[in-house]
């Protein structure tokens, strides 16, 4: 059985540099995935993941293990994404449409082309809806929906109270619901109330 994050971190801090390999192998895909959803760019997501691990490795000696390593790593990655998003405001950005045209979007593969087209259309709509959210809500939605972090982990990663995380998520989901309904996405429509 593999070592836990805490054990790997402790080994790294004790001088076993190779233990960091285990942390990278465990978290690299998820950090890159989060960065991709924050930034909408595969290249930038890879850069951010790389930079986040480098930062974590350099700062590992000072990591006090009060929070989970994953939360700390997500915090680093989230801050890197925020920096990039801030810089984007002053220059041209890569649009979601552009990324979709280059094939960066992966959707559910169905048995037929029509299903794939429908999935691509839904994926595009979802991306646009998420992109339209305020930054605070978008971060929480991404970390919860796509990274499957607990509320506590998200709170640690974003350095906010758990109650704030839940409030932001609730509002974010509400915004997404409205947006998706406007786009005609059926899943967001309320299901018929069960018979009493």
């Amino acid at each position, binding site marked *: 059985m593999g070592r836990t994050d805490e054990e790997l971190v402790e080994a790294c801090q004790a001088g076993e540099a*190779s233990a*960091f*390999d285990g942390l*990278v192998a465990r978290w*690299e*895909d998820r950090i*890159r*995935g989060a960065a*991709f*959803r924050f930034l909408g760019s*595969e*290249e930038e*997501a*890879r*850069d951010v*993941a*790389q930079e986040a*691990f*480098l930062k974590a490795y350099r700062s590992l000696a000072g990591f006090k293990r009060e929070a989970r390593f994953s939360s700390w790593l997500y915090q680093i990655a989230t801050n890197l994404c925020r920096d990039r998003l801030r810089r984007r405001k002053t220059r041209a950005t890569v649009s979601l449409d552009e990324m979709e045209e280059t094939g*960066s*979007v*992966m*959707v*559910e593969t169905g048995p037929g082309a029509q299903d794939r087209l429908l*999935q691509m259309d*839904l*994926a595009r709509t*979802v*991306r646009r809806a*998420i992109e339209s959210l305020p930054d605070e809500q978008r971060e929480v*939605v991404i970390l*919860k*929906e*796509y990274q499957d972090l*607990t*509320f506590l982990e998200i709170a640690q990663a974003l350095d906010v109270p758990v*109650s704030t995380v*839940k*409030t932001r*998520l*609730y509002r974010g*989901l*509400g915004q*997404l*619901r409205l947006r*998706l309904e406007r786009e005609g*996405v*059926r*899943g*967001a*429509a*309320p*299901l018929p*109330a*069960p018979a009493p």
Partner: protein
Amino acid sequence: MDCERTGDEGLRADMMDVLYGEADSAARTRVGEHLEGCAACRGEMAALRGVRRDLRAWRVPATRPSFSPRGVYLPRWAAAAALLLIGFGATLGATGYDSLRRSLAAQEARAADLERRHQEEMRALQASIARVPGASFDPATLLAGIDARIDERLRESESRQAGRVDSRLAGWQKQVDAQRRVDMARVAASLSYLDGRHGQQLARTNELMGYVLETSARKR
């Protein structure tokens, strides 16, 4: 129909816990009791579950890892830049080699042309010498004559230099001899002077001794 507890943050938090499976039994009970009597919140919970299903449509493309303990994978732009650099370098190298090859070939052609022109000039010169009546041209003979003249000049020069050296040595020898004679004369004069003083001193001493002996004899 709206919920009577629309602004209840606690209920919303409980609903989020239930929606994401993080609710404890107490929270599940609270939410369940509320949903039984609130159609708006039941509809909202159902809608939020639908939103969660829709959100799954957006997937992250699977790519190579960006960080490796044994190295860092290049982003696409960096890889493209590297390829461009390699291509540029290869092109530059090929161009440079081709340019160097062309330059060498041109130099070779120029050298061959120069050699050809020199040979032509040499042949023309030989032909013009041959046209002079009674003249003959033999490079070996010409060079031998030049060498002989050079050797003769060298010998004459060496002879002149040797003569000048001998003359200087003879003059220097004369000066040394004259100086030696002068010095010897000075030494002789000094010795004579010393001898003279010594003689006077001796005579005076003898005179004093005679006087002392004479005085002593008279006292006795």
